[in-house]
């Protein structure tokens, strides 16, 4: 009996080791492209194409980063990406807070009808509305301007939906208490509901910043000028330029990936939970 127990304990231990081995191999596969990007970006041209590959260069060629940065107006792309992400996110949060207030705390004619229609639009792929939106923006004279990058993304029903859930979870007793203190509905929204929904707001903001930062098809289509390019579009253009070497291309890819990676490591829990909730509800 005793012998049996200890052998099953050893079996258990072996199982756990295999489990960790499996997870480590998986993690390695997930991280490898990032590692390879940084490693290649620090190699010289000869080291980059050597077979068998050099895992990590002896002399780090940080000059590749400077060369890539100067080979295209990456500073401009960077500013564009930051501005578009910041403005669309701020606008999305404000429009969502206002709309969610009406949907969560007011009773009015047509409420369910409007809500259902908007819920239905969440199912429509963005690609379907691409062509008419292009036409609308060109009628408004906004194609190839910052407006085209910003205006269509200033409101998003998913953000409204998430805010509504957050507001709905705040008990109405707070409203009556605020009323007794002489607060208006507007003050109640901004001084009670909003501060109590900080984690939802953070999640919406982070998701939109990442989505805006990574978005490619829309900025590709609505802009032509070099100085309006966002980072992904600029990176793609950089690659199509003749004579780009892999170390520089990898350095340029690092510029695009690094800011979001840092954001991700800092706000890891908010971002993972935010996306997971989106997946479950959306």
């Amino acid at each position, binding site marked *: 009996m005793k012998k049996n127990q200890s052998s099953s304990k050893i079996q258990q231990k072996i199982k756990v080791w295999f489990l960790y081995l499996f997870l480590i191999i998986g993690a390695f596969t997930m991280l490898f492209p990032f590692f390879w990007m940084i490693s290649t970006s620090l190699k010289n041209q000869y080291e980059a194409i050597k077979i068998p590959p050099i895992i990590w260069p002896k002399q780090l060629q940080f000059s590749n980063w400077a060369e890539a940065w100067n080979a295209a107006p990456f500073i401009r792309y960077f500013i564009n990406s930051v501005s578009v992400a910041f403005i669309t996110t701020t606008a999305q949060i404000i429009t969502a807070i206002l709309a969610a207030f009406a949907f969560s705390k007011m009773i009015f004619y047509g409420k369910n009808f409007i809500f259902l229609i908007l819920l239905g639009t969440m199912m429509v792929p963005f690609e379907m509305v691409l062509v008419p939106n292009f036409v609308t923006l*060109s009628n408004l004279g906004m194609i190839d301007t910052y407006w085209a990058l910003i205006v269509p993304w200033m409101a998003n029903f998913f953000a409204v939906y998430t805010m509504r859930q957050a507001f709905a979870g705040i008990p109405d007793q707070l409203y009556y208490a605020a009323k007794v203190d002489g607060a208006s509905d507007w003050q109640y929204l901004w001084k009670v509901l909003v501060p109590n929904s900080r984690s939802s707001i953070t999640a919406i903001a982070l998701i939109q910043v990442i989505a805006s930062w990574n978005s490619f098809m829309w900025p590709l289509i609505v802009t032509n000028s070099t100085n309006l390019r966002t980072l992904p579009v600029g990176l793609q253009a950089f690659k199509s330029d003749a004579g780009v070497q892999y170390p520089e291309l990898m350095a340029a890819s690092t510029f695009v990936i690094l800011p979001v990676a840092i954001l991700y490591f800092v706000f890891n829990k908010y971002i993972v939970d935010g996306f997971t909730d989106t997946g479950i509800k959306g």
Partner: protein
Amino acid sequence: MINSKPTIKSTLTAFLYLSPMLLIVGLFELYPILRSLLMSFWIKYNFYTGAVTKRGFDNFIYIFKDPIFQKSVLNTFIFVLIVVPLTILIALLIALGLSKIKFLQGFFRTIYFLPFVTSTVAISMVWSWIYNGNYGFLNWFLSLFGIHPIQWLSSPKYALISLAIMAIWQGLGFNIMLFLVAINNVDPRYYKVAKLDGASSFQTFLHITVPLISPMTLLISINAIISSFKVFDSIFALFGGRPGPASSVNTIVFYLYQKFYQQNQYGVAAASGVILFFIILIITLFQMWFSKKHVYYTSGINNK
């Protein structure tokens, strides 16, 4: 609620709060949905004045007869059929593994999720380097096992597979997290009972975990199918703005992009957008029907 009955006044106030959102969503979501349905029937038109002189089904007839569209639909379906089952299988295995450990679980979750938040265009550049036929890391790695160099991106035979491998890699973390939520929601009492009954861990997995997480599995498959149907950024970045060698990775959305942006056939592009919408609609309706019939729901576990 700050009022108890709908009145004219409360409706006006509510619409005041809704107006910024309604303006944007109305102009860039609702209106274009209707407009693209109409546009798909436009045959002779001036887009900028909106003057249409001829309407009809020609765009749809053109699309269905177009061998490039047929190929792009076929490619899209093959892509979905490779990516979705493999993603589900691998994500489930990893999620199951993660649910069994405490030490370093958070660390692994952070790493597995990283590709999902990464710019598809930027990471495609890295993958195109890894896939490089002459100097790429992957061919060197495979050569250790005696596999001859493969032209991952320039051979029509492998282009779609290369795209699929990268897509699986990038989407895995998201699906692992969803599976983890479902696995953690399983009532531990079920496992206790199974253990008392002498069930092996594989039996427990097959007869308790799998049925109890089936609502999430369905949700994940629908999510994965829809996002795979819309693949675009990675094609553009991996294959330099072209649909791969011999159009081997042309997909529905890439076809739409080409018709719209490169060939200015707006009506045809709108029609292919409408077709994409109906494909997604059918999948969603199927999900609703299927989940009513076959998915095992229990109280308290994601019964949405």
